[in-house]
């Protein structure tokens, strides 16, 4: 029983991390095709926004988290207006530009806040099962990740705004010919993606050491999860994260975490080779049969 729960806990922790790392990028890269190498820095902004507002203004954690998310949305909006809107349809240029943004932001955090910042205490508590102790907050993150993903799926797949956003990104000229202000749709969609990265930073802020490179811990997981999810990221994200989480958990359980990371990278190579449209391509193909 304890053994099984331990496996479930490790798997759930890995699943939540992969999902939360990927949600913002699923919008910005998966939908909008901006290869955002500054995604980690968006998460960093969310984490610092949460921790600094929590410490400086002595805010309760949920309020500090909301503050962190709002700061990230504003940060995303400014970047979109100044730089990103000139990069739609230019994926290679977006790599260079967002890489530059990433360097500037991480170095700015280093200059402003120093090499590390005093973190917040992890909320909730721990519970004991057998000889192992488990964080209740980590369990909470699993459910939050699934709820956020469901809401995101609903927003982009079931609402009129979601249809409009998907349509506009597929073909801005047609949307414009229907009277849609394409720039506004792009700006709002990008702000949602930035806000979701901020949510990730805010949620993980109490669990990690706050350093300027905190976002780098997420960037690889974010990209491999979105790529494995495929062309329709909101359909493929859960199976992709579940698959990668299973690979990582099982390999890490028997070997160590470095080998687990190597294993998921190998798994991604196999997925790209045999499922070029990712898990969403497989699901949509199966549904249409």
């Amino acid at each position: 029983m304890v053994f099984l729960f331990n496996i479930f806990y490790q798997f759930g922790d890995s699943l939540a991390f992969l999902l939360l790392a990927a949600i913002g990028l699923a919008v910005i890269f998966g939908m909008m095709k901006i290869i955002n190498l500054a995604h980690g820095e968006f998460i960093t902004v969310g984490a610092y926004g949460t921790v600094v507002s929590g410490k400086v203004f002595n805010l309760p954690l949920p309020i500090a988290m909301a503050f962190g998310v709002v700061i990230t949305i504003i940060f995303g909006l400014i970047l979109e207006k100044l730089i990103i809107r000139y990069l739609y349809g230019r994926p290679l240029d977006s790599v260079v530009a967002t890489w530059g943004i990433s360097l500037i932001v991480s170095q700015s955090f280093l200059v402003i806040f120093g090499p590390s910042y005093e973190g917040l205490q992890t909320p909730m508590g721990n519970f004991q099962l057998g000889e192992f102790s488990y964080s209740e907050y980590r369990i909470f993150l699993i459910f939050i990740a699934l709820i956020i993903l469901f809401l995101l799926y609903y927003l982009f797949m079931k609402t009129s705004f979601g249809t409009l956003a998907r349509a506009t990104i597929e073909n801005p000229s047609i949307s414009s010919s229907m009277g849609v202000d394409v720039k506004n749709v792009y700006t709002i969609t990008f702000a949602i993606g930035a806000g979701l990265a901020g949510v990730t930073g805010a949620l993980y802020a109490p669990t990690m050491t706050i350093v300027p490179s905190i976002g780098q811990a997420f960037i690889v997981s974010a990209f491999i999860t979105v790529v494995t999810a495929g062309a329709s990221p909101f359909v493929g994200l859960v199976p992709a994260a579940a698959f990668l989480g299973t690979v990582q958990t099982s390999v890490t359980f028997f070997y160590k975490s470095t080998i687990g990371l190597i294993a998921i990278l190998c798994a991604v190579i196999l997925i790209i080779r045999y499922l070029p449209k990712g898990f969403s391509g497989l699901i949509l193909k199966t549904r249409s049969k």
Partner: protein
Amino acid sequence: MASILETNSVTKKFGGFTAVDNVSLSVNPGEVRFIIGPNGAGKSTFFKLVIGFHTPNSGSIKYKDQNIEKLKLHERINLGMGVKFQAPSVFSELTVLENLSLANNRNNSLNVNDLLNDFDLISEKNNLAGDLSHGKKQWLDIALSTISKPDLVFLDEPTAGLSVDETKITGEIVKNLNKQGITFIVVGHDMDFVKQTATKVSVLHLGKMFIEGSIEKVLSDKGVNDIYLGLS
């Protein structure tokens, strides 16, 4: 009668090349006006000027007496215009119904099933638009540009790639929409379609307005025949 669209001495140059040269045009409400001419006549550039893809170097474009030459496409659409580009422009990843609901941002009282019947799309309403035949994509595209009941619709080569039968059906669709009060400006090549649908024709040649009038007047003009035969 006040014109719904009026261009006044509109000129567009690309470097040293003048694609549209001093073109003045006045379209009255209720018309199905065709803009025709041989390749290189300036039809496409003129189309792009009136829909807002190009800004004229000189001259003015008025829609219901309002200058629109500096407005973007979506701003012109929101004044009550519709546009259909030459290639069928439908959202291929959305269903036929999703395409229509996205385009229907003004006409809330619309009966979608009636509309689907009018455009022969009822049996494909839940299919992805990308899976439709070329002809049905063209009709869906016309439906998208007219669903909000705009006062003026621009159609660029709406019968491109269609069979003779499909062209006839397209003509009937346009005439039916015209009876419902929509004015059309159509850029086209297909003379059978022009004869079936046009109420007035404007011929462009080398970027200039060559002749305007009824289809009979235009077709009986020796100059027009010479242009199409490459004699001038």
